[in-house]
């Protein structure tokens, strides 16, 4: 107690509470992560004890020996890459149209992208399931990609649209003035200027697709088991420690991509995307 009192008077009241708030934040933020890492490397972990009884790589060997792990991993990345490319092809022209052209119900359409994200997903998937059965998309790769696309349309349209809006009309006109056709202007001036934001949106899309489980579970099974889907089944059938290992495996690409994104693009590019103009 004496130590706390001394600390309180040494740093002053404001700093003391700041310290408390920051400690609480760290605990909330890193506590679960630390717990996850601990779980992943523990041998056995049963309820009353706080720390695992022994550490081992037992669950790593278990997870890595799952015979469908490599194929699931490959599938996860294949789905994520396909989704990202498809989202780019669909959403970049849409984003450009939203940023540059005035058409009726423009804001309504822009807003409608939010609606798909505001819905409880499972309700949306069930309704879509009916259509998917009708069109024979259940259990198909295309079906999985469509489900993933729906989740990413908002980011992929809003963020690049924000970037396109920040490009001044004069910059495009100046390029036409020196002899570039509309198409050339788009590929040489507009697209490169908006590239940081497009990169951010692509990373979001890629990551969202990589960890999408609900929709894939409903539409893809039994033919398409991505890593998150496999994780669901493992969590149901095995101790929590196995799930922890999966989580770490899944978190790695996310960490890598976010570090990469932070290095190359600023937060302003992301923020610009969420302006409803």
């Amino acid at each position, binding site marked *: 107690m004496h130590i706390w009192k001394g600390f309180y008077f040494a740093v002053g009241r404001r700093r003391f509470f700041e310290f408390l708030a920051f400690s609480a934040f760290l605990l909330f933020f890193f506590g679960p992560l630390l717990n996850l890492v601990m779980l992943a490397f523990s041998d056995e972990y049963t309820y009353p004890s706080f720390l695992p009884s022994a550490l081992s790589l037992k669950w790593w060997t278990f997870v890595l020996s799952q015979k469908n792990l490599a194929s699931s991993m490959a599938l996860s990345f294949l789905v994520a890459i396909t989704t990202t490319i498809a989202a780019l092809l669909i959403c970049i022209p849409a984003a450009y149209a939203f940023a540059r052209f005035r058409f009726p119900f423009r804001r309504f359409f822009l807003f409608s992208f939010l609606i798909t994200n505001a819905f409880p997903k499972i309700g949306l998937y069930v309704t879509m399931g009916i259509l998917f059965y009708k069109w024979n998309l259940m259990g198909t790769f295309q079906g999985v990609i469509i489900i993933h696309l729906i989740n990413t349309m908002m980011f992929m349209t809003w963020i690049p649209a924000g970037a396109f809006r920040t490009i001044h009309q*004069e910059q495009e*006109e100046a390029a036409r003035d020196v002899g570039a056709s509309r198409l*050339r202007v788009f590929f040489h001036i507009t697209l490169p*200027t908006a590239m940081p934001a497009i990169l951010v949106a692509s990373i979001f899309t890629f990551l969202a697709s990589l960890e999408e489980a609900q929709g894939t579970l409903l539409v893809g099974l039994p033919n398409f088991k991505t890593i998150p889907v496999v994780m669901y089944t493992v969590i149901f059938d095995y101790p929590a420690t196995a799930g922890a290992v999966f989580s770490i495996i899944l978190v790695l690409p996310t960490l890598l991509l976010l570090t990469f994104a932070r290095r190359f693009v600023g937060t302003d590019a992301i923020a610009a995307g969420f302006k409803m103009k």
Partner: protein
Amino acid sequence: MSDNRVKLSINGMTKKYSNGEGVADIDLTVHEGELVSLLGPSGCGKTTILRVLGGFLKPDKGNLYLDGVEITHLPPEKRPTAMVFQSYNLWPHMTIYENLAFGLRLRKLPASEIKESVARAVALVQIEGNEKKYPSQLSGGQQQRVAIARALLIKPAVLLLDEPFSALDAKIRSQMREELKKIQSDLKITIVFVTHDQEEAMAISNRIVVMNRGGIEQIGTPEEIYDAPSTRFVAEFIGDMNFLQTQEGKVMAVRPENININIDSNGGDNLNGTIETMMVMGHFIEMILNSEKGRIKAFLPRGGNRRFREGDTVSFSIGAHRMFTE
């Protein structure tokens, strides 16, 4: 200065926006090697004309001819015009060199030729040593120099400038003005220059087109516009002007320098007024006189024998002036 060959002509051009603004029935001829300014308050349509010339706006009516060839329906990339905008001219993701070379690369010129041309352009606008920088690393004045160089590099038949210096500091602005004038006379290029700054227009133009509310008020040399304004708007817009009511329902327009203060005596054949305020503006004195004709601004050269004070009564006569109907 400018020979008489017609370079550019605008015939009966109309361009109206949905809000009713725009220009109507514009006729204008620009000669080879001439610098013509479109001058007017904001919203007068001067930029609309320039954007129609550049191909960024389609006119509703009328034709444009450049070197005798109709260009009315050509898109900007097919027109032999080059434009410098007020700001945001440069492409932020390209270096200065890439910005300058872009147009030449589109024309598929050999790399060595592009390099030489860019080097010449860089020297012309005095931005040597900045080729590897990005636009955001340059000052506003330097960026506009790059924009001018880029426009000149594509060897335009007409150079279009849309208030290119209005975002710059007063000092740099006048320096850029002089340099533009020098480049224009060295290269003998034809320029259409848009500005709302009458001083700028007077300083650099061979001819000024004064515009108001989507129409042309007067076309003339800076001297003609200043000495013989043809409408009341031009008289009011260009320079300082006193407007005095007369009996016949007409308005007399007199420049302050044409109010002749009688320095030797009071009274006599002339008008009388009291000095309300007096400011020494360097080589001349600006006076506001309270007279039977109303408040009148007068310029008086310094250095006379007589000392004036505020509150003094002076006599004056009216020199060169023009009459306008109300």
